[in-house]
């Protein structure tokens, strides 16, 4: 298994190189540059700016320079945030995104799996309908609708939580964004878990277990849960990545200083280095998460061996 993992990690290098190259070319092909603003700067000032950030060099030279500094672990200087390096910006935003995204993911797995199990065991009961309703609501309402409603309720009407902002991991500022993301993720995980468990419970080996007279709890937790978790694990990878990348809306609604904010500002300001740095980060994340998911399959399904 370790050699498999190592091979997968090594495979990341060509993937990363491809992603960086494509992204690099796309960024430079987009009309408008980092220093195009409402106040057009004079040709001489533009030349000063380009020289300062090596944008005056031929594109291939800039590309090689970028790769060289990347190898040294330096993601470059930001154009939009002139006083900061991309490393510093990512270093500041990543813990915020991890706390919100990771916290929400953990909670969603616990709540989603639990609700899915209950709904599957009580199929077509009131509890099942309730779980499905919550699931459908979470999928149907976009976060930019639920978020402001949460703020209105808890921050403005009840005045028990702040309406937004961030204060050094102060839990009060994390409750609403985590609640929002959890609500949305639970809907996915809960529905997948319910469907998958129902299918497993109808399979032959469960019928055998029932025939042997095993108690329900043993059937569910020892025999049915593992195979039923497979589809849930499959959706976890994409969910985890999207809790970082699609956190843009959550971060905007709650004014959080996370990675989503950087991605949006980076792209709209043509902050080439910032966007590339974030793309590298997200790619590495995606590769690692996919690897973890694949390794989890081996644990859950005895048929899979690496």
């Amino acid at each position, binding site marked *: 298994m370790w050699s498999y993992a190592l091979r997968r990690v090594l495979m990341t290098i060509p993937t990363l190189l491809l992603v960086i190259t494509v992204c690099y070319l796309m960024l430079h092909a*987009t*009309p*408008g*540059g980092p*220093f*195009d*603003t*409402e*106040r*057009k*700067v*004079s040709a*001489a*000032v533009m030349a*000063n*700016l380009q*020289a*300062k950030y090596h944008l005056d060099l031929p594109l291939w030279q800039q590309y090689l320079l970028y790769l060289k500094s990347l190898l040294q672990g330096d993601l470059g200087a930001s154009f*939009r*945030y*002139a*006083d*900061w390096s991309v490393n510093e*910006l990512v270093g*500041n*935003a990543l813990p915020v995104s991890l706390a919100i995204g990771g916290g929400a993911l953990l909670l969603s797995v616990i709540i989603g799996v639990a609700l899915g199990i209950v709904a599957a065991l009580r199929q077509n009961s009131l509890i099942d309908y309730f779980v499905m309703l919550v699931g459908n609501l979470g999928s149907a309402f976009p976060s930019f609708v639920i978020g*402001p409603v949460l*703020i*209105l309720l808890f*921050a*403005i009407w009840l*005045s028990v939580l*702040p*309406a*937004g*902002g*961030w204060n050094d991991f102060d839990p009060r500022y994390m409750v609403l964004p985590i609640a929002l993301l959890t609500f949305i993720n639970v809907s996915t995980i809960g529905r997948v878990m319910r469907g998958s468990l129902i299918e497993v419970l109808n399979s032959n080996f469960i019928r055998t277990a029932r025939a042997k007279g095993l108690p329900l709890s043993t059937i569910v937790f020892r025999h049915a849960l593992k195979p039923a978790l497979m589809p849930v694990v499959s959706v976890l990878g994409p969910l985890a990545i999207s809790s970082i990348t699609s956190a843009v809306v959550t971060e*905007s*609604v*709650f*004014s*959080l*200083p*996370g990675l989503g*904010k*950087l991605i949006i*500002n980076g792209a*709209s*300001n*043509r902050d080439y280095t910032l966007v590339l740095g974030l793309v590298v980060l997200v790619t590495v994340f995606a590769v690692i998460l996919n690897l973890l998911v694949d390794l989890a399959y081996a644990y859950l399904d005895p048929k899979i061996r690496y």
Partner: protein
Amino acid sequence: MKKTMTISVLAASVALGLGVSGAAFAAKIPAGTPLAAKQEIVRNNGSEAESLDPAIAESVGANNLVRDLFEGLTATDNEGRVVPGVAESWKQKDPTTWVFTLRKNAKWSDGSSVTADDFVYGIRRFLDPKTASTYATTYGAFLLNGVEAAEGKKPVSDVGVKALDKFTLEIKTPYPVAFLPEVVSNGQLGPAPKAAIDKFGKDWVKPGNMVSNGAFVLKEWQVNSKVVLAKNPQYWDNKNVQLTRVTYLPIEDGFADVKMFLSGENDWVYQLPPGTYEKYKAELPKDIRNAPMLGLRYYGLNHKDPVMKDVRVRKALSMVIDRDILAAKITADGQVPAYSAIVRGTSGADVTSYDWAKWPMAQRVAEAKKLLAAAGLKPGSKVKFSYNTSEYHKKMAIFAASEWKTKLGLNTELENMEFKVLLKKRHDGDYQIGRNGWVADYNDASTFLTLVQCGSEQNDNFNCNPKAEALIKQGNQAQNPAQRKQLLTQATKLIMDDYPMIPLLQYTVPRLVKSYVGGYTTKNPMDRYRSKDLYIIKH
């Protein structure tokens, strides 16, 4: 000619600027106003500052922070008047030479004195091509050899800034710049702390490293979260600074901004989201603030375009847009109809207008139809309007398109795009009619004239009126402000009669500010509020 002149522009600054030293200029609190025990404010700044380095700061938000952290030779107060800063007085020695006398008790936050050399260093650093400040040629244009230095054609040591002694600074301008005292209130032309910059390099602006000379010092800076400032105990006018802590937020989402205001986490909404002004005016009458500022919304007309190069077409398009309805019903946020490139409240020129602005609409339409017919543009013809994606711009664009359709029979193709793409198209002249806007950098007509002057970088219309250009040149050389004003007004009128653009509305800043925030006025045309001038009323 060598005669000593007194300051000839900005009457208020004359009164305040000469022979006064060490007097209190900040936080003029009306007698009997009870102050809150806790003097702390949270201001939303609209976006994350791109830099806290005064030489590099470009956006409104970054400059707001720079004005709190640093102080230039002069400053502007909460009513937009020029007041002494580090300079306690100044004189215009001859038409192009100014002498500023610095106060001896002005200190950096590390306790050292602010000297004339700090200004020389700061200004040279700002203009140095290596610094690559986007404002280098904008403000450099007011200093002798400033533009040449910014362009690398002359060494920065040739710039017309000289320390006559430790506390006397001489500034030479390329032509008589009567409004220089206001220009030097900008942080870009302020002092810089050489020792700290040499020691920390780019990181000198970070908390713990920054040495500043303003009313506040940098305490904390979390990107995209907040910048926290604390009262500067070394500041020369420290006893007149009320606020002990100022928190700047970088919230861009207008609705999130308002929600934090309503929940009490924010005292100052940067700008109300479009379409909400009337609602909050009714709901929060004590907190709503709205005042015109020196800014213009306009549509640029590309003179390189075969249809738009005909002045009759440009005139017809401008005539039929009913600015009154646009202001009252479409944007509905208190903005003022505009008919000139220069807006009300601008020094240095009078606002011009068109005769037809007072005609009944039917007469305007009839005249516009005649013009279009003469130009050969038949009803049913197509024009193309480009704008950057935003609800606000879209509303205005749909209104303009409907005016052109119903009154002139023209079909408008609305093309929306991302902001940077629009900028590129505008700068490259790859458009027909384009959304545009401008906010003054300093209170003088010349900032607005850059939008319509021959060969100006800000002129996306690519129009040029050589006669007007000559008048502007003549005006800038004039030593008599009244004469300059007359020449610049005349030039503006000439240019506007060529219809280079469609002026639409003068900007206002509709926002919410808690009623207990003292020092906020509606008479601040540049919308520049130093936290020094603010205080918290007991509530």
